[in-house]
């Protein structure tokens, strides 16, 4: 604690003098913060993400094969798989289980389409008090909107480029 105060005091004095954030001070402060930020366990985090993410993809392939055995075309079966994954993830988010899984697996559940589904429902539930239209309806897209806007824009640009090239 005393160390912290010692380091902060000269910073404050300098900032009051110049008012503009001093670059050296910010650098020093960043280094100071770095000492206390716990280093993430890169290897174990990556391993967990790898195993969980891989399992989700393998499970998706299993469901797809089951559906294709029943005579669905590859495209329809793929759509069913996406819908099943999305709905499962959203239900789990509703029950509050997804956060627990997410804490363990990290990117393992956020990079597959399940993370996209979670990013829609989670903020929507939080803003329920603001009403069903402007609360839930609007916040459904507070995170997913960014993904949709960027993705759709890029796809439209790609489509136009391909149309003019060929």
């Amino acid at each position: 604690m005393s160390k912290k105060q010692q380091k902060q005091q000269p910073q404050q004095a300098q900032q009051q003098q110049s008012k503009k954030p001093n670059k050296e001070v910010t650098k020093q402060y960043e280094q100071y913060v770095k000492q206390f930020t716990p280093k993430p366990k890169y290897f174990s985090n990556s391993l967990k993400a790898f195993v969980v993410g891989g399992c989700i993809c393998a499970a998706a392939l299993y469901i797809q094969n089951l559906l294709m055995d029943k005579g669905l075309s590859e495209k329809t079966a793929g759509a069913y798989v996406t819908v099943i994954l999305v709905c499962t993830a959203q239900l789990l988010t509703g029950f509050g289980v997804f956060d627990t899984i997410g804490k363990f697996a990290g990117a393992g559940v956020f990079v597959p389409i399940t993370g996209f589904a979670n990013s829609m429902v989670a903020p929507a539930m939080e803003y329920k008090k603001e009403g069903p239209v402007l609360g839930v309806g609007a916040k459904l897209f507070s995170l997913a909107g960014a993904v949709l806007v960027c993705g759709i824009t890029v796809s439209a640009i790609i489509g136009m480029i391909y149309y003019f090239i060929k």
Partner: protein
Amino acid sequence: MDYFYAFLIGGIMCVIGQILIDTTKLTAPRVLVIFVVAGAILTAFGWYEPIVKLAKNGATVPLPGFGYALAKGAMDGAKDGFMAAISGGLKNTAAGLTAAIGFGYIVALIFTPKSKR
């Protein structure tokens, strides 16, 4: 063997995401955006198609697969005219998006947020 490749490629993509979150200051939504856009651009250059052929769901289930579906729809539509080129991306992902929006809305209306355990 299909399952092995699906597991491997899907896992690798998640590891890339995990490393991006751990080592850089990118937040999770930014990582999602980067993945989708990267998937779409890789598809446009024709580099994502071989991965999908090899790993199937291992490549389509992670978010670059969403970008792949968007770009693929647009590229297929480009053969049928300008309007199809613009609408193709959404057409190809309509089922998943509609499910995510419709079902997500219902779930968010029914459930209340739980405190984290």
